[in-house]
Structure formats: structure tokens, C-alpha cells
């Protein structure tokens, strides 16, 4: 059973530890600005929402990549960007309807969550268990997938 | 004899329904009651009874076992808390 990230906004305090862990794992420096996971603030609701790629089955980014730079990690299901192959054309950044693959101007490459090979740093560091790595069925990311399906350009698929 | 039991923070839910104010219950207890016995009788989670004051004076865990509560005394209890 593949696992996926489950975010529980009601538990998030907005402390940035996930962003710090992510940036250190990927950029070798504490640098929330370069984290693959981002916390969005909803001051009116007093909510913080950790947000990153759900590794959707549709994989808009992967399909849109013109140079085969995004591939699936068969073990985790993560869609992974090869920095070597990425030319920085940014097509994936507008193709992904979730906005979770982003261009980094200083490196000229796109970056996204790769689930850290199956041991996500954000999950390990979160002090409030607002980010979990659990069996995909249990994540309730069915809702995300539902939204993913809604963005599919094929509005209906009827097998013959 | 009548004593006051004051519960705060997460312990408030252990107050009886008919409280004198937000935190205080006036209880009729037998003579010779100790804070430890009170905690047991009221089914308060012992590990959450972190700060126990008898009339505003701190009782060590040992004193909670032995100190006898007198008529009109107030026992105030808090879970682990801090501030600053």
C-alpha cells in the first residue's frame, strides 16, 4: 500500500518547522523560502494550512514536462524532478492545478515534494502531528483526488 | 465541614455542576480530609494535579497526603502550567 501525506490544518500552529526540515533536506540550509512544503495562513479563521504536492495520479506536471524530467518513484508513488534533465521551461508550474511544483529562479529548475524517498522530513519534525504519512486510502485525500479529476481535461471517460 | 475546592485550566471539567463561581465548588467533607484524599474522592487525575495550594500555600506531594483540611479552607489545584 502506498502512503501519502495527510495534512490536518486544525492541528497546525504555523511554526514553520516543516519548512525548515524540508529546506535543510533539499537545500542544505534552513530556508523556509525554498521549502517544498508551504504553510498558508488564514488569519480570519485563525488557521494555518501546510500545503504540498499530493503526488496525484494524474500527474499533470509529469505529463506536461517536455523533456522527460519528471518521473515516478515506483516505491513511493512520488513524482520526482530530475534537476539534471529539467531545462527550466516552467510548463509544469502552470499545468499543475494545485500549484505545488514551483520554479526556483536562482537554480533555473523546478522543485517539488518527493516524499523524501518514503521518509518525509516534514512529518518527522512536525511537533503537533499536523502532517502525517499514512496509507493512501486513509488519508482522506480522496477529496484532493476528486479535485484532481475535476481538473482533468477529459470530462468523462466511458470505456467501450 | 464545608471547604472550597478550586479547580483550574483542564481540571475545571471535574467541578460539580452546581459551582459557586467559574472555578469554585463548596463541598461538605468529613473531618480529617487531606488534599490527597480529596483528589481521590473527586476522581481527579492525580498526575494532572501538579500545583496544589491550601489557602494559597503550596503543598509538597508529601504534605498533600498528611495535611488535614480545616473548615473553610480552600484547596486550589492546577495541572502543569506556566506563564511569563
Amino acid at each position, binding site marked *: 500500500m502506498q502512503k501519502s501525506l495527510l495534512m490536518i*490544518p*486544525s492541528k497546525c500552529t504555523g511554526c514553520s518547522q516543516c519548512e525548515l526540515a524540508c529546506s535543510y533536506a533539499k537545500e542544505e540550509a534552513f530556508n523556509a523560502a525554498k521549502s517544498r512544503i*508551504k504553510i*498558508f*495562513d*488564514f488569519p480570519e*479563521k485563525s*488557521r494555518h*494550512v501546510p*500545503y504540498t504536492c499530493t503526488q496525484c495520479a494524474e500527474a*499533470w506536471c509529469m*505529463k*506536461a514536462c*517536455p*523533456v*522527460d524530467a519528471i518521473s515516478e518513484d515506483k516505491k513511493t508513488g512520488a513524482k520526482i524532478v530530475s534537476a539534471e*534533465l529539467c*531545462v*527550466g*521551461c*516552467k*510548463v*509544469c*508550474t*502552470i*499545468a*499543475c*492545478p*494545485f*500549484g*505545488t*511544483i*514551483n*520554479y*526556483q*529562479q536562482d537554480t*533555473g529548475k523546478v522543485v517539488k515534494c518527493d516524499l523524501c524517498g518514503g521518509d518525509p522530513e516534514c512529518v518527522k519534525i512536525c511537533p503537533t502531528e499536523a502532517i502525517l504519512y499514512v496509507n493512501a486510502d486513509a488519508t482522506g485525500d480522496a*477529496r*484532493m483526488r476528486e*479535485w484532481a479529476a*475535476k*481538473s482533468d*481535461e*477529459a*470530462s*468523462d*471517460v*466511458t*470505456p*467501450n | 465541614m464545608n471547604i472550597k475546592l478550586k479547580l483550574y485550566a483542564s481540571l475545571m471539567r471535574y467541578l460539580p455542576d452546581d459551582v459557586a463561581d467559574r472555578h469554585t465548588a463548596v463541598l461538605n467533607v468529613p473531618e480529617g480530609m487531606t488534599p490527597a484524599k480529596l483528589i481521590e474522592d473527586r476522581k481527579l487525575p492525580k498526575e494532572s494535579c501538579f500545583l496544589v495550594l491550601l489557602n494559597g500555600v503550596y503543598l509538597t506531594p508529601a504534605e498533600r497526603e498528611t495535611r488535614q483540611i480545616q473548615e473553610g479552607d480552600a484547596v486550589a489545584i492546577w495541572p502543569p502550567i506556566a506563564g511569563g
Partner: protein
Amino acid sequence: MTYVIVGAGPAGVAAAETLAKTAKGSEIILVGGEPEPPYSRMAIPYVLTGSVGEDGTYLRKTENWYEDRNIRYIHGRAESLSTGDSALRLARGEEMKFEKLLISTGARPIKPPVPGLDLEGVHHCWTLEDVRNIKGLTGEGKDVILIGAGFIGSIILEALLESGSNLTVVEAEDRMVPRMMNQVAGNMIKAWCEKKGVTVLTSTRVAGVAQADGGRLEVDLGGNKKTVDLVVVAAGVKPNADFLEGSGIEVEDGILVDNHLKTSADNVYAAGDCAKGPDYSGGWSVHAIQPTAVEHGRIAALNMAGQVTPYKGSLQMNVLDTAGLISTSVGLFDGVEGGEEAEDLNEQRFKYIRLTFKGDYMIGALTLGRTDQVGVLRGLIHTPVSLGPWKQKLMADPAKFVEAYIDRTQVI
């Protein structure tokens, strides 16, 4: 079943792969018009800058990718099509029989009717071959004129600038990237380019190009003349559909298809830059962009394989990096009658967001100077996401579109 796919760009390759998966055991023939393995034009500028080699543009990097999927990849150019006897004739005279055909021949650059564009030293920047030809003519101290500051011109611009050449861009319309940007954003991109040392001449037409001394070229800018080493023409593209003449297949500014991407002929489909497909924002359009090409390819292939798959239409969207200033445009960024719009402009910082709405939905967006989470704009518009109370919030603060998306699509 024999499937022939003519044109080995992203649409053709996506179609071939989809067929390989869904129509197992069929014969799949992918015909590419250029001698190289299937490659992406999106990556062309990066070959010009040298940041990748030619193989960096290849659509698939795995060895034997096509063979392993029983996709036969052959080189050839379509010469004509006979729908009556289901035959495609190639330039070498070879005739290919098909049961289902997909036309994914893409587009080619236009040469505007300007005298002198046939001279040596005048190039497009469209194919790998073009890049090889241009490369030696750029660099420190070289003078280059780029004709056309549309989407493609602007992409090439960065590569030419990076080579160290003295660059002049000539655009006939009154702003840069006229079809992808509005006046505000177009002007900002122009100002940015000028800041980067590019001479940008908008509302200017090239009257002619003539040979000058030392193999250089003299470009007539309508009175004002400039001598350069290289002229790059990026004045638009048109579909590769000439070979369909006489086939009976209907072509306007693209091959007409229905909402299953089928052409006017029953067993012929079209996809990608050559097809005028359903436009999510209404009507029918040629959306010559990578994501549409891939979606076209996939959906056409499903329909060809008998999986009836209606297409809800492609959304126009572009992302552009003009000398480091990144811009995106999605959907109907000009807005529609009876709709609403919101803008957030900071000219000093080269930041701009414009959102357009109709009723409860976002229908278009422009951004300048933003790279994070821009995909959400597509999500909001294309899903589409009902905005509810966020409509008013976005009207007041358009930058909060990610929050709007999260709040409206997730339980928070």
C-alpha cells in the same frame, strides 16, 4: 488495427504512448518529420544558451523507449492524404495505409512578406537545425535583430541576450507579447527588457533586409537602418496542414476537430498545434502550447482506440521567462462583458496580478514576477472552483489566490 500518427512532437508521442497502453497488440507507427528523435521545441532556447545539449530536448530519455512499447518510429514528411482509401503519402513516395490516423504535425514559423528574409544570416529559431545555424552568429560583440516579440520571440530573447549579443527586438504591435499579455504587462516586460540592455522597438515594422559588407545584414526599420550579424524571425507560426489540400479535411487556422478531436473525416483525428480544438473558455481555438498538445494526444488516442472520451476543452495558458522576468497568462485575462476584474500592480518591483471573473468563477489571470503556486490559477479556472466569499476577497486582494484555492477545495 493499424494506427498511424504523423508528427512526433509532444501530441504525437503522447498519443502513441496512450495507444500502446489502451490498444495493446495494435500496430502503432509514429512518423517524425525531422531527422532527430522526437524532441521538444520548448527546450530549444536552452540548447541555444548551451545549458543543455541537443539530447536534452528529447521528449523521452529512456533507451529503446518507443521500441519497448511497440511504437515504430520512422522519419518522413507527409505529402498528401487520401481519406477515401485511408492512405498517407510521404515525401519519399512511400504510402502508408492506416485504419486510424492522427495528425499531429504541429506548426511552422511564418516568414512575413519582407524583402530579404531569404538572405543568409536570416534564421528562424524553431528547430534544432536552426539552433545549429544561429549559434555561431551570436555572442559578445555580435549584433542581432529579433523580429517579433510574441511568445516565441520572447522565449528566444533570453537565450540571445545571454549569449552576450547586442540585441534589438522589433515588434509590429504596440507592446511585447501582445497575444499573451495586456498593455500593462506588455509594457512592463518591455521596460524590464530595456533595463536588461535590450533595445525594444514596438509598433515598428521591418521594411527590408539587405546584404551589407563582411557578410553582415542591413535591416531597414522604416527609415532607420541597422547593420547586424544575425536576423532571427519569430513572427508567428501556422499549422502544418498544407498536405491536407484535396483530402477533404476541413482546415481553417487549424484543422477542425469535434469534441472528440476527430476531424471531418471519420477515421482521422488531429491533435496539438495543428488542431483547432475545443476551447474551455468558449468556441474553438488553436492553443499551441505543450500541455494542450499532450492532452490532445492522449484524448485523441483514447477516442481512436474506441474509448469514447469527450474533451472539455483546453485552457489557454502560458508561462514566459523574459530575461528573468517571469509572466503567466491563463484563460480570458482580458475579461468578458458583464464580468469583473481585479488588479494588483507594483511597477517598481515588476509585480502584477490581474484576475478576471464571471459570476462565481475566475475565468482568466495574468501574473508578472511570480513563480510560486501559479498553477493554482489553472486549478481555479479550469476545474472550475466556485469562489463563494473568496470572490470579494480576491477582488480586494488578488494575490491571495492560493489561499482562495486551498480554502475552497480543502477542509480547513
